[in-house]
């Protein structure tokens, strides 16, 4: 099929009813380094692998606080992510000012999805090239959402996006039934184990290239500091999900 005829802008449908530009934008997400999220009844944990443009450079941050009760992890074009992050932060502030309470997570994700969809329907615009994992806690419960460049959004029990994320998702499919009742420590160890599945053979997890953010019903969003990261990574080898089953 003459794909090149139908794939140059967002306003052209292919004969099969596909929007190739939107699908290409989803590829940008797959090129970003892996980030994942998982939740229990009380906590949400976001883990991501940070990349370094060169030896002399710092590592690119992948997780951003939106409000005390909400945070995002990004995969894809960082500059596009900054736009969405700014939008989400502004919306949360305005909501807090008007209603004196936290922005419900699902509604903010809906707004982001709507914004993303508008960018897929004009010849003069391009879709956002970033996927977000939105972790948040509100009176409706503990949430983890994924947003896509297409404007779709989904709520998950746990999800991984970015490069080599299938390995992490496979880990999740085996163990996600344990997450609901897991403690915060178990959740973090599960997240790090899943990331470990997705790294290259010559790579190693250390406190510099891993980022872990946690949210709890009584815990505002915080990042684990370097020492805490080192401690958790040290516990990884001894961590055995099977022992968690025996406890229950």
């Amino acid at each position: 099929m003459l794909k090149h005829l139908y794939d140059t802008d967002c306003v052209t449908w292919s004969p099969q009813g596909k929007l190739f530009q939107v699908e290409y934008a989803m590829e940008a997400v797959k090129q970003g380094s892996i980030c994942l999220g998982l939740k229990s009844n009380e906590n949400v944990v976001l883990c991501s692998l940070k990349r370094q443009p060169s030896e002399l450079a710092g590592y690119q941050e992948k997780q951003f606080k939106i409000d005390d009760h909400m945070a995002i992890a990004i995969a894809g074009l960082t500059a596009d992510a900054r736009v969405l992050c700014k939008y989400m932060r502004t919306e949360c502030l305005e909501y807090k000012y008007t209603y004196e309470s936290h922005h419900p997570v699902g509604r903010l994700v809906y707004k982001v999805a709507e914004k993303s969809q508008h960018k897929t329907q004009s010849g003069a615009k391009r879709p956002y090239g970033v996927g977000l994992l939105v972790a948040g806690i509100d009176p409706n419960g503990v949430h983890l959402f994924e947003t896509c460049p297409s404007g779709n959004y989904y709520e998950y029990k746990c999800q991984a996006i970015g490069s080599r994320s299938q390995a992490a998702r496979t880990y999740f499919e085996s163990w996600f039934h344990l997450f609901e009742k897991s403690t915060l420590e178990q959740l973090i160890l599960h997240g790090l184990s899943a990331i470990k599945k997705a790294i290259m053979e010559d790579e190693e997890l250390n406190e510099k290239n891993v980022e872990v953010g946690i949210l709890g019903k009584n815990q505002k969003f915080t990042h684990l500091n370097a020492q805490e990261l080192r401690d958790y990574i040290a516990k990884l080898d001894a961590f055995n999900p099977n022992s968690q089953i025996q406890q229950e």
Partner: protein
Amino acid sequence: MSGSMYDLSVATYSQEGRIYQVEYATKAVENSETVIGVKCKDGVILGAEKQKFSRLLEDNTNKRIYNIDLQTGMALCGKLPDGRNILQRAKAESSQYQDMYAIPASAHVLSDRVAQYVHAYTMYSGVRPFGSATFIASYNTFDGYELYMIEPSGNKYAYHACTHGKGRAVCKSEFERRNFKDLTCQEALVYIAKMLILAHEEFKEKKYEYEMTWITDNNGRKHQNVPQDLINNAVQQAEQLIEQDQIGE
């Protein structure tokens, strides 16, 4: 079916007078999950199948059927982001109508406005048609129960029963066989479930959820979710019906 060089822009007619881009947008709807709308003796039911494409997905989220107003509902078929854009517009239209005329917008007014909005996106090369068909169901005291479907072309018709998506052929043949005007909404639930199950027969290993809403005489004529236990019962009974049909063949 490829239209050579006349199918690259929505602002181009082909030599036979077709607009291929609109037809391709409709293709996107035809390849997606099935949605059904049915008018019964005492109300209207909207039903949609949702495939759980990953075990990691949360249950009962990712809705396809929304409220536009207390007594008006909209079901989205096709690309959900596009459908939600149409939904936002419908909500705004409904709200503005109520502001101006102090009564809720009926489906034939609302569907007219939504259809005009959808159609506008088929006229300019700077935008593209929506890859989404929408169903509007409502009740009001002047017009009673109404059901409309709006296609990506901007065409809209009032229906007794309508469907779009992958399983539309199966559903349409079921519509021919059964006279829903003689059934109450409660009785019709089983047949809605049956159609939704038959619509995805080939992909039996996947898990599906069913979303159903109704507006009936019995629930205060408001657009609400059908209670989950009624849906579960309907799905169970429908599976038995399908088995019996298969044994009969």
